[in-house]
C-alpha cells in the first residue's frame, strides 16, 4: 500500500500538476489575505480615532475566519482536479486490471489513492498556514481556534477527496470524473447556502452541507457531530468506491 501511495505521490509531483495547483491555491489565498489585511488595517485606523469603536476590530472574526473560509471554499475547485485521474486514468489506459493483479486488496488500492490525494491537499492547506504565521507576528491570535479550524480543514479535505475518488471510479473519462466531483461539492455548498430547502433533513441529521460543518469549527467551536459527519462521509464514499471497483467483477 505504501509503495502504491508513493507511486501516486510521484505521479502528482513529477507531472508538476501538484506544484502548479499548490502555487495557484497559495496565490489566491495570499491575495485574499492581503486584501482582508489591508481592510483590517484601515478599520483599525478608523477605530483608533474612536475609542468606543475599538470593539469592532476583531482579528479572529474579521480576518482569520474569512481567510480560513476561503481556504476551505477553494478546495471545491482544486480537489476535482487532483482526484479526477485517480481511477479514470487507470481505466482509460487499461492499467486498472493490471493493478488488481498486484497482491493488494481493494481496500489497500483505494486507501493508497485516497491517502496520496489527501496528502497533497493537506500539504497545500498547511502551506497556506504561512498567512496565519505571518499574522501571528503582527497581532496576537488565538491558537486553539486556529488548531480546531485546521482540524476542520483536514477533515473537510478528507471528505472532499473521498468523494472525488468515488467520482473517479465511476468513469474512464477524467473530465466526467472532474465534473461529477465539482458538481457534487458545489451542490453541497449550495445546500448550505439555501438551508431552508433542506430544513426537514436538517432537523434530524443536522446540516447536510460539508462546508457548514467547517464554518462552526473555523469559529472555534468543536462539535462532536461535525467530526462524526466528516468521518462518516469519508468512510461512506470510501466504501462506495470499493463497491464500484468490486462491481467490475460482475459487469465484465
Amino acid at each position, binding site marked *: 500500500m505504501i509503495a502504491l501511495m508513493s507511486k501516486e505521490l510521484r505521479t502528482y509531483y513529477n507531472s508538476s500538476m501538484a506544484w502548479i495547483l499548490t*502555487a495557484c491555491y497559495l496565490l489566491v489565498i495570499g491575495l485574499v489575505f492581503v486584501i482582508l489585511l489591508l481592510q483590517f488595517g484601515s478599520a483599525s485606523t478608523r477605530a483608533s480615532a474612536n475609542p468606543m469603536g475599538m470593539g469592532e476590530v476583531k482579528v479572529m472574526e474579521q480576518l482569520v475566519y474569512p481567510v480560513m473560509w476561503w481556504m476551505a471554499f477553494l478546495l471545491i475547485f482544486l480537489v476535482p482536479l487532483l482526484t479526477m485521474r485517480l481511477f479514470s486514468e487507470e481505466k482509460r489506459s487499461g492499467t486498472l486490471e493490471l493493478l488488481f493483479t498486484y497482491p493488494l486488496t481493494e481496500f489497500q488500492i483505494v486507501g493508497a489513492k485516497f491517502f496520496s490525494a489527501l496528502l497533497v491537499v493537506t500539504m497545500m492547506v498547511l502551506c497556506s498556514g504561512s498567512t496565519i504565521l505571518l499574522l501571528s507576528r503582527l497581532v496576537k491570535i488565538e491558537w486553539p481556534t486556529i488548531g480546531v479550524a485546521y482540524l476542520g480543514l483536514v477533515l473537510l479535505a478528507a471528505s472532499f477527496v473521498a468523494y472525488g475518488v468515488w467520482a473517479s471510479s465511476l468513469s474512464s473519462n477524467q473530465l466526467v470524473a472532474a465534473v461529477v466531483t465539482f458538481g457534487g461539492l458545489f451542490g453541497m455548498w449550495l445546500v448550505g447556502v439555501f438551508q431552508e430547502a433542506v430544513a426537514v433533513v436538517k432537523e434530524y441529521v443536522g446540516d447536510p452541507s460539508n462546508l457548514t460543518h467547517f464554518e462552526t469549527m473555523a469559529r472555534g467551536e468543536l462539535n462532536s457531530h461535525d467530526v462524526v459527519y466528516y468521518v462518516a462521509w469519508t468512510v461512506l464514499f470510501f466504501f462506495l468506491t470499493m463497491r464500484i471497483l468490486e462491481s467490475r467483477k460482475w459487469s465484465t
Partner: protein
Amino acid sequence: MSIHTKAALNTVLSFFLAMLLFGIILAISNKHNKTYDVTQNKRLSLSEQSAKLVKELKKPVRVVAFSNDHERKNVERILKNYRNANPAMFHFEVLDLLKNPARAKAYDIVYSGQGVLELLPEGGANEPSKRQERLNDFEEQTITNALVKLSDRDSLKLGFLTGHGEASISENQPFGISGLKMALEPEAYKAEEINLAKQPQLPTDLAALIVAGPKAPLLDGERDILKKYIDDGGRLLFWFDAQTDRSYADFLLQYGFEIPDEIILTPDQVGRITQDSAAVVGMIFDAGHPVTKDQKEFILSLLSHPIKAVTDPTRTNGYTVKPLVSSTDMTVVVPTAEVLGKKKMAPPKGKAASFPLVTLASKKQTPTASPSPSASPSPSSDEREARLAVMGGEVFTNQLLRVVGNRDFSVNLINWLVEEEGRITIRPVAEESKPLFLAPGQVRNIVGVQLLLIPMVFLLLGILSAVKRR
C-alpha cells in the same frame, strides 16, 4: 437469476444500506452532540445565567425566528446553544419571512430579524401561543430577557432614586443609565424610579435602592426615610458623583465611609485633565470577595473620589467597612474644585498611592417594621444584613458600562447587595479588540512574500519537475 444480476443487486442494496447507515449515524450524533468552545473567552457559549435559566425551564418553550439567509447561520448558532442546554424544553424554528408570510402574519412579524419566544402549544402545533414574548433581535441578552419574562420567575425590584439630579434609567444618552437597566433585566430584576417627593416612603418589597450621582441634597424627611431603610436592613448602592452635594458625604460617614473632597488621578493627568478624561483604572480587587474573586478585567471609573473606610470601629455604628476595588498605587489625589475647573490645578501634595474606588459596608440589623417577604430572597429570620456599596465615580453610565469589566462588576455588585451571590459570574464577552497598524514597508513585505515569493517557489518547482521529466 444470473450471478451477474445477483451481484448487481447486491451492490445496489449495499449502496442503499450504506446511505441508510450514514443517515442513522448522523441522526444519533446530531441528537447527542457535545460542543467544546475553544475560543479564548468562551464567546461562543451561553453565559452561566442563560444556561441556568434554560435548564430550570418547567414548561417547553419555542422560538420562532424569521431570518434572512445572510443572518440565518448566526441566529441558528445562538438558538442551538439554548437548545443544547435543555433539548427537552427549548425548541426553535428559523423561517424565511418571504416564504412563510402566513406564519409571519400570525405572529405579527413584519421584518426579518424579528421573532417570538412562546410557550410551546399543545402537540407542538404551528399556531401562535397565547403566552409569547416578542424578540426584536436574537442577541443572547434579548432571548434570556424574554425567557425570564415567560418563565414567571419572581422579579426583584430595584429602586432608582430620582428628584435630586440623579442619572436616569430612562436616559439613553452617554450619562444616562438605561444600559444598566437593560443589563439587569435578564437577571430577573425590575427597575423602577422612586421619587420621595411623590411617595412618602420606600416600597416595602424593594430589594435594593440605587442612588446614582445625586446633585441636590436630600430633604430632611427624605434623609430620615433613607436612614430608616438602611437601619432596617436595607441595601443601598450609592454613586458619589464629582458634583454630588457634600451633605451626602456627611450622611454616609455614619456608616463608615469617608469621602474626601478630592478626585483620584494618575500623575500624567495632573495639569492637563478635562472632566471627560479623568478616568482611573480600578485593578486592585479584594480577591476573597464574591463580587471580585472571578473578576478578570479591570474597571474604569470616571471622576472618582476616594471612598475611604473608617478604621475606628466606634465611628462606624457597628458596620464592617472595607474597600472592594482600589486604584493602582501610582495614583494621586487632587481637590475636586481643581479638576472641575473651578480653581487652577496645583501639583498634587501627597505621594502616589492606591486609593479605594468602591467600598462596602455591612451590618446585621433587626428591622423595626418587617418589610414584605419578597423584599429579600433569602432571610429566614427577622434579622437582616444591611449592605451598602459606595462608588466614588462613574462606572455604570451608558458610556462606561460596556468598557472593560464595568458591566460584570456593576451587575455582580447588585447581585451581592441583594444577597443573590449565586448569580455572580463573569459573562462571556465578545472577541477582544486587537487593532493592527501596518507600516508601508510591512505591507510591501507581506505582498512580496504572500503574492510573489511563496507562489513563485511552487511554480518554479513545477517547472523544474516538468523539465526534469522531459
